[in-house]
């Protein structure tokens, strides 16, 4: 993305060079992670005990260990095995950015599945019974009754997850990926000023501000039943849960 030779003079421009990577990491891991998380949440609620147990273990491992361990396990750890080095995945697993995306995706899947599970469990059982009584199939019940309400319920929690993932992309700097944090840290080491770090901080704040606004707008759009006609965007929720 940047080379040593075309280094911009302006520190804002310099940090902005890392923005595409930061956004790519956050967006791709959130998108893939969300799909996987829906599946994982369903496994967590499955009537089959081994499946439930496997999903629980996955969530427990990824939520109880630091993301940095997970990143290092994938980037440095997997190369220890010759089988991995000879496999078709090696060209991908050798690259820092694929490892970062993989680690971030696996991590957000665990956290998001818990948020979605909470949403699924919040749907009143009577509605499922009513849908059954109307003759809906399992799939149709899920698509028309359970899922839309679960998502609405899970949205505030998922907004926090988005912010946490945007922040988490900074850990990709530890495996040589030139996203905003690594560029800022290198520039700080080179110039002996901490200005680049503050500039990067402003970028992260801006992304997170826009993301939370986006989620709030979506929340507003998805809950016509809870708003009165004249009120505009609701105020930000001040109490996200600590991760």
């Amino acid at each position, binding site marked *: 993305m940047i080379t040593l030779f075309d280094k911009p003079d302006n520190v804002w421009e310099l940090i902005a060079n890392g923005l595409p990577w930061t956004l790519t990491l956050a967006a791709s891991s959130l998108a893939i992670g969300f799909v996987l998380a829906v599946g994982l949440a369903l496994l967590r609620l499955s009537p089959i005990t081994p499946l439930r147990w496997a999903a629980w273990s996955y969530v427990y491992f990824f939520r109880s260990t630091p993301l940095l361990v997970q990143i290092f396990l994938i980037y440095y750890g997997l*190369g220890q095995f010759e089988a991995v080095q000879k496999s078709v995945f090696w060209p991908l697993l050798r690259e820092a950015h694929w490892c970062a995306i993989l680690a971030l995706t696996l991590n957000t899947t665990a956290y998001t599945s818990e948020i979605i599970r909470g949403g699924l469990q919040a749907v009143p059982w009577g509605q499922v019974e009513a849908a059954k009584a109307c003759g809906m199939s399992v799939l149709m019940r899920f698509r028309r009754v359970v899922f839309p309400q679960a998502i609405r319920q899970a949205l505030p929690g998922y907004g926090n997850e988005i912010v946490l993932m945007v922040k988490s992309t900074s850990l990709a700097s530890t495996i040589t990926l030139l996203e905003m944090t690594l560029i800022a840290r290198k520039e700080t080491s080179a110039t002996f000023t901490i200005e680049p770090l503050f500039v*990067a901080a402003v970028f992260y704040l801006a992304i997170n501000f826009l993301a939370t606004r986006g989620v709030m707008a979506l929340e507003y759009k998805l809950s016509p039943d809870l708003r009165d006609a004249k009120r505009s965007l609701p105020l930000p929720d001040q109490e996200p849960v600590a991760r």
Partner: protein
Amino acid sequence: MSEALALLAWGDGGWGDEMVFGAFVTLQVATLAFVLGIVFGAGGAAIKLSKVPGVPLIGDLYTTLIRGVPDLITIYIIFFGGGQAAMAVARVFGYTGYIESDPLTTGVIALGIISGAYSTEVIRGAVLAVPKGQIEAAKAAGMSTLTRFHRILIPQVARYALPGLGNVWQLTLKDTSLISVVGLVEIMRQAFVASGSTKEPFTFFVTAAVLYLALTSLSNKVFDKAEIWANRGVRRV
């Protein structure tokens, strides 16, 4: 498998003792930072709940900034900024050499500030959960501000805040791994060094993961016990 176990042996032949020592450093940083964070959190909650106009904004600024910026950036700012600040002070006294921040101090201060932002929200919520009537009743009974504080407010705030503080502790414990980037020899750093010299990174990062799992699981148990203790006077349905 037996080779991996030999690598993790105790003493000069293996890395077992080094890894466990790293776990103690992790626990030490996490504990100091968590306690510092509660101090910041109590201060932050007091500021956010202040009735003086404009003052709560300072608290909002603190929590919004810290929670919106990656922890790694905060750590770097305190690490590099702290070194520069120390050098600026030293220059006044005639010392012009290079000063580097101490990783342990950096870690405790940085994680203290970060966990403090989360603790602020937890403690603020807990204070708001104490019924106002109780404070009024204590006043009517003639209790001084201090007595009201330690007899009425603190015991109940502690009870309401415990589950949230348990979350903050987990977060702080996991965040200590980030201090390895500024050179503190805790679990991650130790695993990294061992991986480099043995060329067996998977073994050591799995060991690190197991140590973190043990620490989080054990501390979960402690917080569960603490919650039961704090709720001993509450009748359950």
